[in-house]
């Protein structure tokens, strides 16, 4: 398959990888977050090229609309936001490089040696199949994942409560109002 789709693939791949490199090296953490946005968008573009439309939309919805926003919130709330210098310092360069090399080796070996089933030139909507599989074959992992997320949510809410006494007072005041 050659033609415009190839160029779009290279553009999307370059955007994904280039933005990911920027995420790693930019000293300003907010710039890194914006670069991450472009990386996510590039991955969504790759999904679209693979005719995985549902997955592409999910990628944008979850990563851009959810994770990136959460990341920005965390940066804004945990630093002196007005005028502060928000940095993204680099530590432990050598061990990090070693881990990256090993990870790269494992992933590239896996990518090259796996016999991927390649399907060409067929464009079919995937949404119905994904829905059916999530409700039948993968119901248990799906539910386990959601229970895990729920537990994390409750844990986060519990940890972020101030102290119990104050909260009860607040609750009472709310009840009266």
């Amino acid at each position, binding site marked *: 398959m050659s*033609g*415009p789709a190839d160029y779009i693939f290279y553009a999307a791949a370059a955007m994904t990888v280039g933005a990911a490199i920027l995420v790693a090296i930019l000293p300003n953490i*907010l*710039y890194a977050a*914006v670069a991450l*946005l472009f990386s996510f968008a590039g991955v969504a573009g790759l999904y679209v090229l693979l005719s995985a*439309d*549902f997955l592409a*939309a*999910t990628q*944008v*919805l979850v990563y*851009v*609309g*959810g994770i*990136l*926003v959460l990341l*920005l*919130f965390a940066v*804004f709330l945990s630093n002196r*936001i*007005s*005028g502060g210098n928000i940095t993204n310092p680099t530590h432990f360069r050598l061990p990090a490089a070693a881990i990256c090399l090993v990870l790269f080796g494992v992933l590239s070996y896996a990518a090259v040696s796996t016999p991927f089933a390649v399907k060409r030139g067929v464009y079919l*909507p995937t*949404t119905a199949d994904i829905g059916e599989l999530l409700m039948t074959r993968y119901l248990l992992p799906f539910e386990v994942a959601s229970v895990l997320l729920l537990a994390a949510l409750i844990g986060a809410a519990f940890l972020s409560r101030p102290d119990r006494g104050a909260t009860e007072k607040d609750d009472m005041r709310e009840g009266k109002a």
Partner: protein
Amino acid sequence: MEALARSLMNAVPLLAGVPLWAVTLLLIVAAAVVILVFALTFEGVGSLVLRKVAGDIQARIGPNRVGPNGILQFLADGVKLVLKEDIIPANADRLLFKLAPYFVFVGSFAAFVVVPFGVGLIAADLNIGIYYVMAVTSLVVVGVLLAGWASNNKWALLGGMRAAAQIVSYEIPVGMALIPAVLVAGSLSLQDIVRSQGGLLGIFGWNLFHNPFSFFSFFLYFTAAQAETNQTPFDLPEAESELVSGYNVEYSGIRFGLFFLAEFGDMFIVAALATACFLGGWNVPFFHAATLPWIWGNLLSLGVFLAKAFTMVLIMMWVRWTLPRLRVDQLMRMAWKYLVPLTFINLLGVSLWLLVFKGKGIPAMIASLFG
């Protein structure tokens, strides 16, 4: 688009030598330009109508200087926005400050791609239509947050944080309230959803009247969407009296214009989704628009769709100038304690209804009683 390009190439012999992808690309660009022109016109005229409605509701005249009865005011505003000096505060983060309006505008404008304007009038009938809208509009949140932060202004930052918290919270009830329409149609494509409401039942074929739960869904959607677009009972991110103007306070000229256009674009998207999912979309009552010649069918259905959508926009403006603003905690309580549980109950109700009555709505069952 590719099918259209192929038929165009067969019809016009001059195009025979041009590669297929070039014609397709040209058609895509043409569609984008048409939609952009429509969106910008709507946003301009919308701002005038908003001010006129505000004038009427507040018992004053409103803009009446430019042109007869002030109807050319939006053109003057547009020229003003383009020509005004573009000021970037000295301590602002210049790159993010410049980038943020584009995120907001792109997030809002990209949603226009799947709006079903008529029988065949849709830029791209994606089979994940509604889901796509939910996904691309999430880009708006990022833009608003960055705009608030990059301005290096406390009001802007507070406005940006409020906007993000609000949009993220209300995204859930908005999505959940749209699902009943998806369930009834059995598809995420907006064209399929509109088609599923056609037929001989007329307005009783609409999802609004399909069953009690889808009826409530419409109102839940409309309330939550009003909040997601930062309209007045929920306009805390802008709150002139406390935050001056919120996340866009430092912006001037065309950068402010982009935020402004995106706001009106969001209004139209909400109205268009409400129309397509609950109010029958472009279906002409008691009539199959698709059976007419191409041009008449499309014009008729476009007219029906726009009439419904603009009515919804007017209702949004009416609500906007009627209700006072909520407090932040009231806003969050409304989202998480009332709207989210209600939409979940509704979703359960619709699912049960479709299961028990095998997908039939109340009007269809009544109609079948009379044979």
